[in-house]
């Protein structure tokens, strides 16, 4: 598909990831470096000797995840694959060795068949090189049942939270088991659910992955542009918020009156004007259920190219997680305290 037949700013679609990384590198050269040959994004001051290093990766197309989360207080390195395609073990090994500070490395692995397999191969390669890798699986999406009849729950919005919270734990000096433990705690105490109002157009496909007429929504979506669990008529923001909150909270089953982190995410094509309408409705729903939003994240942080839509992630907080959330972070996409 010729570049110019898509509403996209690209050169050759085959080079989109490499060229995007080149742009990321010049834009944020103060905090990260990019190895264009291996296609990995590395914290500029890596390796940080004595610190547990955090590595993640996944297909491109979800920006700012993960390259936009590389920096102090979050990821030490990120590996982007082709659009919507898990990266390869070579990338993960290169990233792992680049950031290994001698205190172990944690791999944050989103639960997709490809991600799991490739990270598994990479962890074996790293073990061959004497690097201790602890792998944490993220599978927070409630849309899919985890059973013998599925590939398990997808890793979605909680990935962002796990990367921030585990990153803060690593920054404060926790050992590799503790850092992994924080990431696992996030995964256990967070749930997500998403809806789409449009499909998206991968550059190599040249057209939308599926057809979604205006006035309908895909319910229970992932982040790779595939159709959701079901299609429903599109309701109001209030109705959508109710559906998102019900799905997430009924599965998460937080304690009465629990403090929560509310992450209202745009899939990429839903503008902030609408996202804040949705977020207001989500907070109303949550407080009506007696939950107490204590931290928020609102914006496009885990996306599917230009897909219109939104997802909700709710994390049940404790004092430690709240403090780790507030800890300084300096990445392209999240920055506070520095």
């Amino acid at each position, binding site marked *: 598909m010729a570049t110019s037949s898509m509403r996209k700013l690209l050169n050759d679609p085959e080079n989109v990831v490499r060229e995007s990384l080149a742009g990321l590198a010049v834009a944020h050269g103060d905090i990260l470096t990019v190895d264009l040959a291996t296609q990995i994004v590395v914290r500029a001051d890596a390796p940080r000797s004595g610190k547990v290093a955090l590595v993640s990766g996944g297909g491109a197309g979800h920006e700012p995840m993960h390259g936009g989360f590389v920096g102090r207080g979050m990821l030490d390195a990120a590996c982007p694959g082709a659009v919507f395609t898990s990266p*390869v073990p070579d990338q993960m090994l290169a990233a792992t060795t680049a950031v290994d500070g001698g205190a172990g490395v944690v791999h944050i692995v989103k639960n*997709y*068949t490809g991600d799991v*397999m*490739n990270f598994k191969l990479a962890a074996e390669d790293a073990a061959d090189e004497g690097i201790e890798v602890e792998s944490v699986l993220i599978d927070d999406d409630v849309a899919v049942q985890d059973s013998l009849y599925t*590939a398990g729950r997808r890793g979605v919005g909680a990935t962002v939270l796990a990367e921030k919270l585990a990153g803060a734990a690593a920054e404060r000096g926790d050992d590799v088991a503790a850092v992994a433990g924080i990431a696992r705690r996030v995964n256990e105490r967070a749930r997500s659910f998403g809806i789409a109002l449009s499909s998206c157009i991968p550059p190599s496909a040249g057209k939308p992955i599926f057809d979604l007429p205006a006035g309908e929504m895909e319910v229970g979506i992932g982040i790779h*542009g595939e159709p959701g669990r079901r299609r429903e008529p599109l309701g109001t923001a209030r109705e959508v918020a109710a559906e998102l909150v019900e799905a997430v909270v009924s599965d998460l089953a937080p304690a009465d009156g629990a403090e929560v982190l509310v992450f209202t995410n745009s899939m990429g094509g839903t503008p902030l004007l609408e996202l804040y309408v949705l977020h207001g409705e989500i907070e109303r729903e949550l407080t009506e259920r007696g939950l107490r939003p204590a931290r928020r994240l609102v914006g496009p942080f885990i996306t599917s190219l230009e897909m219109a839509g939104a997802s909700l992630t709710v994390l049940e907080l404790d004092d430690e997680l709240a403090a780790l959330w507030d800890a300084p972070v300096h990445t392209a996409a999240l920055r506070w305290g520095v």
Partner: protein
Amino acid sequence: MSSVSVDAWMQEASTVITANAERLTELDSAIGDGDHGTNLTRGFRAVIEALAAAEDELPPGRRLILAGKTLVSKVGGASGPLWGTALRRAGRSVGDAALDGPALADALDAALAGVVELGSAEVGDKTMVDALTPATQALRTAVEAGEPLADAITAAADAAAEGARSTVPLQARKGRASYLGERSIGHEDPGAASTVLIITALGRALEG
């Protein structure tokens, strides 16, 4: 006695995968994320580049291992590790020998075992295993019946095609398509479709 040339097989596979990339992407759009055609096209092109750069003396088994490692290094996603492992196991099984009938049957057995070990899929889960399993069985049966290699491969290719068609009414229980639940019914699995192409390509790689 005829045998399969690894390089010719990979070249044919690359050709037919590339020619069918759009169809594979369409299948992977209905029940996936629209990258399967691009993934395998990228992978097999890298494979033929790697084989072209390899020493001529490199035996068939080592060539298959090289192909498998290249797929792992270049593809990503689910199909990279799966086909990468398949070819690596096949290569280990072949060793230095030529890829004649019996060797090919052993190689496909090993390939299938690797895919099942890595992905844990069973026949009926609506994956590449639904095409690779009958293909492997059909080749074994034909080889043990003493049929010429060309006919054995044809039987394997037909079985693969039948297996891929059998995925259409299934509900996926593995891979990305499983997220769609019942909505995966009525669509052919992309990984099964590409398996048909790869197995069929064997038929255009015969030598001797």
